[in-house]
């Protein structure tokens, strides 16, 4: 089936994303986006694409992905500070650390239904948050956060300004491509089958838990890469990285954008960060309230998020065109 589709058909979304991402420094300032926010948007695109592999494919709603984001960020910070200012070993160690934690949490939380999963992922993330605040204070800096990292280096290149942006953008494009590959692979199909009807899948003799755990760990790895890049982008780790606000933000971004579409959550991330940093100037302290209301509106009336809105408009356009 796949062989008959051309490269362009298969990778249209990735190519378009690459075009939008790599030209971002050119057009983003035109809509009042400041330099640096584009990097942050790319970082969250990575986070959100990974999150959609879990939520969008398997339907499991995690309220604790801040744990992997935060653990990777702290690991990266500590590696840069104590081992080497080269970001490659730091990112690798960060991803390994977060992956190991994800395997343990995944084994514990995926034992039962999705309801348990949502509650327990939230709880475990809060556990890491309170650990960072108290027990591991000497490492994490507690309330003040982890500071004092050297300027991150990619071998001989100083990771500052546009160097960080292009590094992050290329990572985002690559990881988006991988996610697209996963989506149309047999493994991706299994993950989607879990969302459709897990019981039926299990009756066919397939070990659904294996695929759930795989989706969970892959999404945690994406979150970890995002967390590591966050420290490369801005050499600081705050305890908020681990907090439920961070997990909640990712959930909100996914839903506003359109769960299960991979592209949608990235649009959600871009929208929310843009909203938070640019549009919120007029709203002041109440921006989160407005965001909460938008989020509720989407959940109630447009569960498919932004992507569903696009589909609806398209459909209406096409039907009227047919009617004429």
């Amino acid at each position, binding site marked *: 089936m796949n062989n008959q589709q051309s490269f362009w058909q298969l990778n249209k979304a990735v190519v378009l994303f690459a075009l939008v991402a790599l030209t971002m420094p050119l057009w983003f300032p035109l809509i009042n986006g400041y330099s640096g926010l584009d990097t942050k948007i790319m970082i969250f695109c990575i986070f959100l694409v990974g999150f959609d592999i879990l939520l969008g494919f398997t339907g499991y709603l995690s309220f604790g992905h801040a744990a992997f984001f935060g653990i990777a960020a702290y690991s990266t910070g500590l590696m840069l500070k104590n081992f080497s200012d080269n970001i490659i070993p730091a990112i690798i160690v960060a991803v390994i650390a977060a992956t190991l934690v994800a395997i343990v949490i995944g084994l*514990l939380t995926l034992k039962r*239904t999705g309801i*348990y999963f949502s509650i327990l992922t939230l*709880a475990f993330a809060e556990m890491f948050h309170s650990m960072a605040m108290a*027990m591991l204070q000497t490492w994490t800096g507690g309330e003040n956060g982890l500071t004092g990292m050297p300027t991150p280096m990619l071998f001989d290149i100083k990771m500052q300004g546009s160097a960080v942006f292009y590094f992050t953008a290329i990572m985002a494009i690559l990881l988006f491509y991988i996610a697209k590959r996963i989506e149309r692979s047999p493994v991706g199909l299994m993950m989607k089958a879990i969302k459709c009807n897990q019981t039926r899948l299990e009756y066919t003799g397939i070990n659904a838990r294996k695929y759930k755990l795989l989706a969970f760990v892959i999404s945690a790895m994406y979150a970890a890469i995002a967390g590591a890049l966050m420290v490369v982008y801005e050499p600081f780790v705050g305890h908020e990285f681990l907090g439920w606000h961070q997990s909640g933000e990712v959930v909100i971004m996914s839903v506003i954008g359109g769960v299960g579409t991979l592209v949608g959550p990235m649009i959600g991330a871009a929208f929310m960060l843009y909203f938070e940093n640019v549009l919120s100037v007029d709203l002041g302290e109440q921006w989160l309230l407005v965001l*909460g209301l938008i*989020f509720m509106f989407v959940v*109630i009336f447009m569960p498919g998020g932004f992507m569903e809105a696009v589909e609806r408009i398209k459909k209406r356009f096409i039907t009227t065109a047919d009617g004429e």
Partner: protein
Amino acid sequence: MDMTLNAFTLYILTGLQLGSIFVLIALGLTLIFGTLGVVNFAHGALYLIAIYLAVSINNALGFGLALILVPPILFIFGVLMERGLIQRFYDRPHTDQILVTFGLAIVIQELLKWAFGANNIPFAIPSWGNGILMLHDYLPFLEGFVVYPKWRLILVVVSIITVAAVFALLHLTRFGLVIRAGMRDAEMMQFLGVNINRRFMIVFGLGSMIAGIAGVFGGPVTQVSPEVGMHLLVPSFLVVVIGGMGSLGGAVIAGVLIGMAQSFTAPYINLNTVIIYLITVVILLVRPRGLMGAKGVFE
């Protein structure tokens, strides 16, 4: 751990007091979950509404009016929330229910932050509940001079009364019988011609009202700030999971267990921060259904 009887008594009381709040919030959560099958991420926000209402009425009109007004207001709020919002989500996936209540929690929290500011509002305890109680006057086995804040003991007593009232309502009345039957098999109840939806609406109001009671008495202990709701929600969720989702008895036992665990580990700060998660992990490994979780409930 070398511990005198005095210290042991104080740890027990603190454990009961910490557990009281968890029990009251978890009771509402598990009641709503058991009957409606809805995981209410806005339950912490209901508690938040309760403490802000309670502190406002208390500081303006006195504690008596706060006690009379806040629980019924929360009951009405719960009923309206069920009719206006939750009801639309019965046929939708569980994740959507979690999402919409999470959204509501953010909206409520931000509204309260907007109206009252982000800082703690002092909650003046009424004169009859202020001060300390001389425990050694009542408990002959205590040596010397042992005191405890009176308000915290009142909180424990209120929790016990509330729990008893909820159990009496569910086990001694016809209404309770129908609700318990509905928890078992809502579909069957409808086949028998019982209007279960109306009763579910009342259950939601009831869960919300318990959060109201918790707010009136818990406000002075937990502080009154916008972050409190979410801070209490996480341990309360764990109480529900440890007790067994939908099990009221389990919630009470687990709430007290968590309270005790937090109280007795207080001297060891590192253990104290993770103890409830450790207990959760152990319970999940040994009894995945929770202490008193019934078979077949959201398996």
